[in-house]
């Protein structure tokens, strides 16, 4: 057995051992029970009794028969978008080439070629592909064992192709970014292919735009898109994507076998592309690029190491502001103007869609719906997504504990940055809704009530999230590390349920106070008042947050640093 195969097998075996061993701890055992129960109910509970009959019963597989061609087209389009986005918005982590520190320390100085190392990482990443494909297959509840196997192999090959392609894109972009013209010379073929594909598809859309807009129904439009995607240059461009998607959608083993060679060929081409992006040539190219750069430009200018802070931190004032400043810097360093510019194509497409809508009422409605959805998601889910608070900072608890700052002030300071971001999003959404409100006959008092209540609801949720992080640090995701496994997923579900229960309990006093004031006003004026009860409820929520932060602060002061474990996997 080769050393890399030995390393892979030992790692897998020991990881499994660790996962099994940690089940001795009740939190993982309970998590596993909840996770397995979830999957049982999701995959098997509603399964039809007769599994053998093709197309019998529910499951997404039944849908395949009814719209296989449409699915193939949609899947191919989705794959093309993924491939195109990879060039516009490449992953920094390079999916298949994320070497661990131990890999770097042990394997890089070892007598392996870079090609061997790339092959090793690519093959190791296949484990995730296999597990992911198995879950997808189970999720779709195949109607027969053959169907299941076809779908599993097909989806595995698609995911492998995506994985390889994203890795190839990352390597190409790195080559371009690092080696300039030498990198371009090395990577010209894939760049030309991608650029050409993009031009063909956009050109087809432009040429046949009158035909597309002439379609009077959605069905006609879809038929026209299908025709364009199957014929001419666009058909050629989309062929590899359709060839891949055809595999899991195959309705019989014979169809699958016929589609297999093309799909395997695509995977193989991507594999060769990735493995050939080896060091020797690139290093020579880098030397060449450096020589050219020296001749042409002289020494390169140093890149700026950091960016401006959100505001200048005064040297006096409450410590909460200092922690807010620190955590806002965290967001600023990860969300750059470049990142926002990458969203432009999406915004442009959205804009074109809106411009195509002849009705101004439609536009207003669209803005209202988007802002409403944005507001609701931010209020209900934002606190779980914006994590630049104690959930991120508990890994630095040893440092925070040496600061002469009360625990409550630390908690409030940590909550401020995500709160500021989420409340800003909510208020911007509400502002957009406010402009559309008169046309949609939405009372402004409702919008004002939402604006008033959002901060309190968000702060209460953030407080609960931070309370959970302080009381049960090993149950939540701390820092950037992410524990994995069904047991961990079960833990997350328990925490989510617990958070909802606590949220209901926390919001109840504010709701009671608001409703009481509302009733009192109605009783005395015979008019329904929205604003004043909302103000009362918001005040109660803010007071609860303040009192709660004092309590969480006390817990934080007593938290043992040894409980914080951010390195589980």
């Amino acid at each position, binding site marked *: 057995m080769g050393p890399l195969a030995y390393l892979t097998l030992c790692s897998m075996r020991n990881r499994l051992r660790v996962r099994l061993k940690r089940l001795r701890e009740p939190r993982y055992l309970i998590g596993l029970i909840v996770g397995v129960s979830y999957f049982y109910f999701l995959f098997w509970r509603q399964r039809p009794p007769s599994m053998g009959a093709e197309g019998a019963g529910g499951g997404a597989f039944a849908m395949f028969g009814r719209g296989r061609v449409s699915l193939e087209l949609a899947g191919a389009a989705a794959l093309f978008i993924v491939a195109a986005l990879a060039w516009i918005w490449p992953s920094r982590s390079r999916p298949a080439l994320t070497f661990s520190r131990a890999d770097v320390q042990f394997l890089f100085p070892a007598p392996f070629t870079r090609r061997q190392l790339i092959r090793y990482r690519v093959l190791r990443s296949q484990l995730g592909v296999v597990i992911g494909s198995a879950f997808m297959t189970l999720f779709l509840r195949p109607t027969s064992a053959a169907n299941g196997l076809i779908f599993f192999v097909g989806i595995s090959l698609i995911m492998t192709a995506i994985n390889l392609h994203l890795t190839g894109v990352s390597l190409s972009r790195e080559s371009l970014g690092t080696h300039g013209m030498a990198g371009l010379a090395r990577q010209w073929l894939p760049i030309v292919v991608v650029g050409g594909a993009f031009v063909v598809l956009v050109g087809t859309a432009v040429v046949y735009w009158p035909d597309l807009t002439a379609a009077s129904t959605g069905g006609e439009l879809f038929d026209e898109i299908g025709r364009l995607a199957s014929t001419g240059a666009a058909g050629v461009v989309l062929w590899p994507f359709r060839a891949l998607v055809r595999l899991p959608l195959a309705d019989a083993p014979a169809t699958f076998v016929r589609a297999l060679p093309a799909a395997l060929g695509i995977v193989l081409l991507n594999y060769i592309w990735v493995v050939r992006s080896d060091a020797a040539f690139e290093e020579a190219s880098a030397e060449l690029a450096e020589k050219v750069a020296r001749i042409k430009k002289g020494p390169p200018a140093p890149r700026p190491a*950091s960016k401006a802070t959100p505001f200048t931190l005064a*040297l*006096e004032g409450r410590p909460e502001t200092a922690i807010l400043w620190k955590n806002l*810097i965290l967001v600023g360093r990860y969300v750059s103007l470049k990142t926002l510019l990458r969203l432009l194509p999406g915004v442009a497409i959205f804009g074109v869609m809106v411009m195509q809508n002849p009705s101004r009422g439609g536009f207003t409605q669209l803005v209202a719906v988007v802002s409403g959805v944005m507001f609701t998601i931010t209020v209900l889910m934002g606190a779980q997504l914006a994590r630049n608070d104690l959930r991120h900072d508990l890994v630095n608890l*040893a440092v925070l504990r040496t600061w002469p700052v009360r625990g409550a002030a630390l908690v409030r300071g940590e909550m401020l940055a995500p709160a500021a971001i989420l409340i800003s999003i909510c208020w911007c959404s509400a502002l957009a809704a406010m402009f559309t409100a008169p046309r949609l006959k939405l009372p402004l008092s409702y919008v004002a009530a939402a604006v008033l209540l959002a901060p309190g609801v968000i702060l209460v949720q953030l407080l609960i999230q931070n309370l959970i992080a302080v009381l049960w640090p090993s149950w939540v995701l701390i820092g950037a590390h992410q524990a994995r496994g069904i047991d961990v997923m079960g833990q997350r579900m328990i925490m989510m349920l617990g958070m909802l229960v606590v949220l209901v309990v926390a919001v109840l006093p504010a709701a009671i106070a608001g409703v009481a004031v509302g009733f009192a006003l109605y009783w005395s004026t015979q008019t329904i008042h929205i604003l004043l009860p909302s103000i009362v409820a918001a005040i109660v929520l803010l007071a609860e947050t303040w009192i709660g932060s004092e309590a969480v602060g006390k817990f934080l*002061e007593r938290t043992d*640093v040894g409980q914080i474990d951010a390195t589980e996997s």
Partner: protein
Amino acid sequence: MISVQSLSKVYGTLKAVDNFSFTVNPGEIVGLIGPNGAGKTSTLRCIVGIQGPTTGSIAIGGHDIVKDPVPAKRHLAFMADEPQLFDYLTVMEHLRLTARIYQVRDFDARAKALVDELQLTGKEHSLPAELSRGMKQKVAIACGLLHDPRALLFDEPLTGLDPLGIRHMKGTIVARGQAGGAVLVSSHLLHLVEEICTRVVIINHGTKVADGTVAELSAQAEMAGAGSSLEEIFLKVTARES
């Protein structure tokens, strides 16, 4: 300035520190030494409030670190063996944050002096990822010294430093002691402790086994014999305890 009385720290069934008492007075540089797992780091972490003691009391400048942590921590600086910095703050931003937390008024002058003293010039706008381990150590030390603390705790202060950095660091520690600071240095480098410390406390299996100047310890016949080096004293004492 630093007073540790009957400190015990228990992790589950493991008693890391057991009834440990000592003091560090202003102007003193005390070396805390002991074998691996003796309880040095646990003691330091209890003193600075990172973790609470199981029993016993710790006072910094007369303030109990558990009952009255904020005033106690205002006097403290802890330089850990593994520098822990915020990934997304530059060197200067670390200093500014520290200045705000400790309410340092003449920030600009102090920050410049520390940057010069610790040879961080040119690295002011670098993120931790762009710094070597030694540089990170210097940033952590600059943050620790910024508020002119009266009680300083160093855990393996020379780790990761280059020869010039080591010389500067030794100078920094001695200067703080001579300026009236109470300095506690935990290290395995016995020659460092012997060179810069005015007194030595030896801990083994969580309990204090020796406390005094090197001359006092070497004079005690049961330890090593007159004229012994700190290394000989240490090996004798810890071997006897084992």
